[in-house]
């Protein structure tokens, strides 16, 4: 009897392990390259790849500031530990020199290295799986055209158990579905512009990686796509891109969205923190048609119900009075007494998605550290917000942030000294 129970247990275990392995390692071969598009000559293909690499801001993770382009080494801080973007130059030993286009496609589309090794999803292949074979080939051709740089990859520094790469099979079994290229191709909506926009937003632009909330194991929550999220390990909040009227892009005109992506500033808000970098290095380089396509798609997203979550506990009268005083002295000169600002130089704080978000963290960080809107071709000499972290204490910052979150119709709720202290620590 015992022996039979034992045997059945083994059978079950083997079956479970087999299923997890099958689910975790399965791949989608993808569609073959479209011959019509594959007709680009070598030079055109490299140029296309250069463009796509800038749109995706590959350098954001694969280039150290001031370092050799695409030679890797940039630190990515996450909730699970620090990862280091690898060398993408065609150096044979330390870069992609020995990779084939199929290897590159497999990494982008299926999240695996040439040896079948599972890649950490900090490399956002759950987004890049949407990238077409043609675009993957163009990216690869561009990377192959770079000057090889011999630079060893820096090993990731992950906490146990996340440093056990084999466990990624379990993670993938639960959360990663290889994209079925054939099914995607069949299910095409009418508008080519909208479709192009979705392709870019979901794929290379990898918007979801910051703007979609994650579960405890770091997987994107598909039920809350682009509905705004804290960026794990970075201490910034990425606001909803959904059509929510207060917290999302509901009141933004297509031109506002276009301006923010193209120039880093708009009538409604300015890019700051990680978004400033995304615009500076990536989105400002988008071709006009692609930019308009992304705007078209983003503006089509329905509300996700985030407004209801962004009405916080009201700020006390004392806090509002203290905050109002600081605002008048320190902020009103640029942002105006009525919070309307003078965009694009000085963004409005009234109805600003970064101010009225459920989390006060962006406003706190701007007050503490200040910041410039990104320099772009459309706004080459941006205005900067002064830092106040050295002149205002935690209580003062909480007061002035509470004031702007609860004035002129904003009703996002109070910020506390603890919020400020946490932001100071995460900003280090």
């Amino acid at each position: 009897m015992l022996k039979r129970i034992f045997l059945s247990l083994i059978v079950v275990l083997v079956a479970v392990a087999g299923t997890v392995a099958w689910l975790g390692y399965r791949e989608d071969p993808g569609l073959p390259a479209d011959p019509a598009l594959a007709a680009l000559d070598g030079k055109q293909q490299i140029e296309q790849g250069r463009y796509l690499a800038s749109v995706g801001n590959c350098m954001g993770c694969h280039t150290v500031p001031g370092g050799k382009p695409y030679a890797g080494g940039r630190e990515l801080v996450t909730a699970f530990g620090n990862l280091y973007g690898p060398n993408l130059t065609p150096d044979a030993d330390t870069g992609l020199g020995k990779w084939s286009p199929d290897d590159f496609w497999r990494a982008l589309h299926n999240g695996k290295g040439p040896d079948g090794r599972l890649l950490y999803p900090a490399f956002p292949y759950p987004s890049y799986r949407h990238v077409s074979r043609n675009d993957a080939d163009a990216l690869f051709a561009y990377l192959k055209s770079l000057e090889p740089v011999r630079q060893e990859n820096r090993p990731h520094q992950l906490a146990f158990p996340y440093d056990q790469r084999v466990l990624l099979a379990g993670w993938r079994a639960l959360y990663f579905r290889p994209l079925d290229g054939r099914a995607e191709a069949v299910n095409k909506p009418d508008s080519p512009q909208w479709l192009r926009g979705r392709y870019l937003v979901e794929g290379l632009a990898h918007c979801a990686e910051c703007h979609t909330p994650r579960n405890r194991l770091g997987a994107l929550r598909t039920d809350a796509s682009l509905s705004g999220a804290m960026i794990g390990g970075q201490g910034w909040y990425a606001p909803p891109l959904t059509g929510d009227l207060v917290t999302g892009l509901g009141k933004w005109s297509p031109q506002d969205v276009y301006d923010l992506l193209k120039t880093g500033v708009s009538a409604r808000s300015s890019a700051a923190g990680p978004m400033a970098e995304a615009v500076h290095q990536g989105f400002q380089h988008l071709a006009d048609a692609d930019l308009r396509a992304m705007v078209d798609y983003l503006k089509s997203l329905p509300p996700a119900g985030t407004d209801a979550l962004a009405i916080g506990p009201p700020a006390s009268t004392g806090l509002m009075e203290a905050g109002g005083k600081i605002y008048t002295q320190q902020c009103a000169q640029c942002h105006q007494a009525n919070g309307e600002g003078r965009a694009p130089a000085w963004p409005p704080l009234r109805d600003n998605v970064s101010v009225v978000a459920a989390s006060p963290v962006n406003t706190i960080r701007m007050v503490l550290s200040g910041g410039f809107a990104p320099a772009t071709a459309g706004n080459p000499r941006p205005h900067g917000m002064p830092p106040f972290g050295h002149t205002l204490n935690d209580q003062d910052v909480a007061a002035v942030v509470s004031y702007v979150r609860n004035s002129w119709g904003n009703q996002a709720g109070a910020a506390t000294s603890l919020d400020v202290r946490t932001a100071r620590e995460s900003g280090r």
Partner: protein
Amino acid sequence: MWLAGAVLGLSAIAAHAADPASENTPLQPDTMAARLTACTACHGAQGRSGPDGYYPRIAGKPAEYLYHQLVHFREGQRRYEPMRVLLETLSDDYLREIAQWFSDQHPPYVPARSARVDANALEHGRLLTLQGDAARGIPACAACHGAALTGVKPAIPGVLGLPHDYIASQFGAWRGGMRKATAPDCMAEVARKLTPEDVSAVAAWLSIQPVPNDGLPAETLSLPQECGSQTHASGAR
């Protein structure tokens, strides 16, 4: 009494009007003064220096020097997180323009504070600054930063009119590799030869000197040793 108050008030207004970049003039968007409040919040209006005795004066420094510092802060050769955060997404062109703007500002110098060390130490600081110490291979500050110590175009900064703590901490940063210049990094070499007592004496002496000639940098100077920042100026990293 009222009259005296009114006269004082009027003269304050007049002084105000005479200084268009005064901190109390409303900012106009799309002027450099308005764009750069993120800088002047710490470095003072026009970059005249901060109120708390740490943030250095940047007004009137050679443009190329300021540009190098901005690039170095952005890219980590000079490590100071608050500056890196501010400069992260600014272009080389804009950094050049910012450097030039501060270089063109010549607000009055803030009066120096009194010395923090005794007379012996001050004398040691004076000798090191003006004569160096040949036995230890330490050149005089004046040999590179100009006989008047107000810097040399295009990339060597003046060292007068700076707070004691700022000067002392720069030596520390050089010794610890937190601040680097284009190779050959002569300043790092010099800093490594100085003892803590030397640093304290030099910082004390420098920080109480009056600033001659409005602090304007000298046009040229032949240096006792090669210095990367000056040799590779103009677009150098």
